[in-house]
């Protein structure tokens, strides 16, 4: 083989290990998830696993809570992340330090974050200590009780907003860095307020980053389970937690796979919705 031929093949040789690895551990299990979900016990195809999934008493609450959490958490996260990103871009002193601090939760696991917020919300926790010290409560209130679904949800929302805002912040900072300074200076010349600048200049130009961040956060939010387990125990259940329970407690990988397939379909649908809803004006005219 000539050296030129060899040269042309080099990049493919370098990619080959990654491609093989992703085929075996990404593409294959993805297909296998659906196969398992539609597989009957004795062989052959069936919808039984999906029927078992839907008939399970925990299914409706898990489905509802998962969607509700996403609907509440994502706007909160994006508001927080945008604030942090604008602060990072505001050329403050110590902005390196602020970036480090804002990025810390990126390296914190779901489970650890859940435990942290459990320590705050638990009966003899920090929140009750503060509230009684301030005289708002005269004795500790049991926030994390099975009867207080509202408080359980609230605690999970805070934990998730605390943990997973960093990633959105990083994506938005990168997006902000790509906005040419002239645009903002032009806005200044025309006397735009900060509010105008955010809504009329920054957010429209940030649309590609917002799209990526929204898709990512939503897909990851469908997979949340350890936060809820750590904060609320069995008080709140989510789709991913049900997948885990069907696999680990009931030892039924087929129904667990049905949950996994559902999560996958929901992820794909939400991705398509974001791609369509946030398409650029040129695309919209098409």
């Amino acid at each position, binding site marked *: 083989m000539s050296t030129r031929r060899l040269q042309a093949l080099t990049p493919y040789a370098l990619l080959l290990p990654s491609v093989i690895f992703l085929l075996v551990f990404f593409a294959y299990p993805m297909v296998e998830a659906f196969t398992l979900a539609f597989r009957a016990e004795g062989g052959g195809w069936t919808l039984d696993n999906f029927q078992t999934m839907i008939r399970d008493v925990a299914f409706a609450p898990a489905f509802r809570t998962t969607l509700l959490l996403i609907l509440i958490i994502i706007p909160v996260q994006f508001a*927080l992340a945008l604030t942090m990103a604008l602060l990072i871009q505001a050329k403050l002193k110590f902005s390196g330090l602020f970036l480090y*601090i804002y990025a810390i939760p990126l*390296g914190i696991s779901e*489970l*650890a974050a859940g*435990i942290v917020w459990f320590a705050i919300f638990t009966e003899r926790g920090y929140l009750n200590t503060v509230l009684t010290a301030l005289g708002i409560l005269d004795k500790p209130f049991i926030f994390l009780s099975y009867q207080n679904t509202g408080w359980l949800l609230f605690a999970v929302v805070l934990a998730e907003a605390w943990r997973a805002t960093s990633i959105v912040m990083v994506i938005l900072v*990168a997006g902000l860095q790509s906005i040419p300074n002239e645009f903002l200076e032009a806005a200044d010349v025309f006397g735009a307020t900060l509010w105008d600048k955010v809504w009329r200049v920054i957010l429209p130009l940030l649309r590609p980053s917002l799209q990526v961040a929204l898709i990512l956060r939503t897909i990851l939010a469908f997979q949340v389970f350890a936060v809820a387990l*750590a904060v609320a125990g069995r008080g709140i259940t989510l789709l991913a937690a049900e997948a885990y329970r069907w696999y680990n407690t009931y030892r039924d990988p087929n129904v667990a*796979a049905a949950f996994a397939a559902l999560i996958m379909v929901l*992820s794909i649908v939400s991705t398509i919705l974001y791609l369509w809803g946030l398409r650029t004006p040129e695309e919209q005219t098409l």
Partner: protein
Amino acid sequence: MKSSNTFLRYVSRGLVYLLAILMALWVLLPIYLIGVAAFSEQLAVYKYPRPFFPSPFSTETMVFFLKSTGVAASVRSSVVVALITLSLSTLIGAPAGYAIARFVFRGRETFRLLVVSTRAFPIVILSIPLAVSFIEWGMYDSVYSLALMHTALALPFTILITSSVFASVPRDLEEAAMTLGCSQLQAFVRVSLPLALPGLAAATLFTFVLSWNEVFAAVILTVRNRTLPALVLTVLDVSPLPYRFAGGFFMLAPSLIFMLFIRKYLFNLWGKVTK
């Protein structure tokens, strides 16, 4: 007129700093509080009102956690899985990153897009079928198969970060080395690799944290060889408060150090927008 303007500017600048500090507190305060719980005596954890300082400072709770059944072994498993993951993903991913950074070839953009889209790794979807496959293949409940899963999880990140690291090493230097008689491989080993080393180190650190934190696949794919998060999760509802708080702090502590080294490279990981 002029002076009132500067005064206003000072005030608004002050407010911006205040907001930045409030945001920092929002992140740091919960970490501080779990730290207080982890470094107080065990009995202090049950005390009410809850002290906001470790009084007295004590490692008793941490020691109790680390000496609890299975914890030491699970920490070992976690570290082994994370080390295998970072070695494998660097070994497999760095060449791909180099190819994307240095070569122009057909299919490059397709591959990049593929890698970018696998960043949102659907771990819940993949773990269950993989568990079934691992049982069939006789590889279930092993730190090695979990490491394979974590490598798949880490690979897109490794490829993206290494490609941006290699792209930042000037190509001219490599070409200069080649005109001086180095082969392409030698030029890479002697010139590009040393320059890329800090970035590669950041990539491996990120991979380590990813694997250290991962819990869903860990709890599905292991039974006796639990990693730390998998162990803590399975005993969570029967474990005493000091165990949980010490465990929570122990699991998040690495992130405090790692982010210090990784933060510069975060934008390479998440910044590149595909469009």
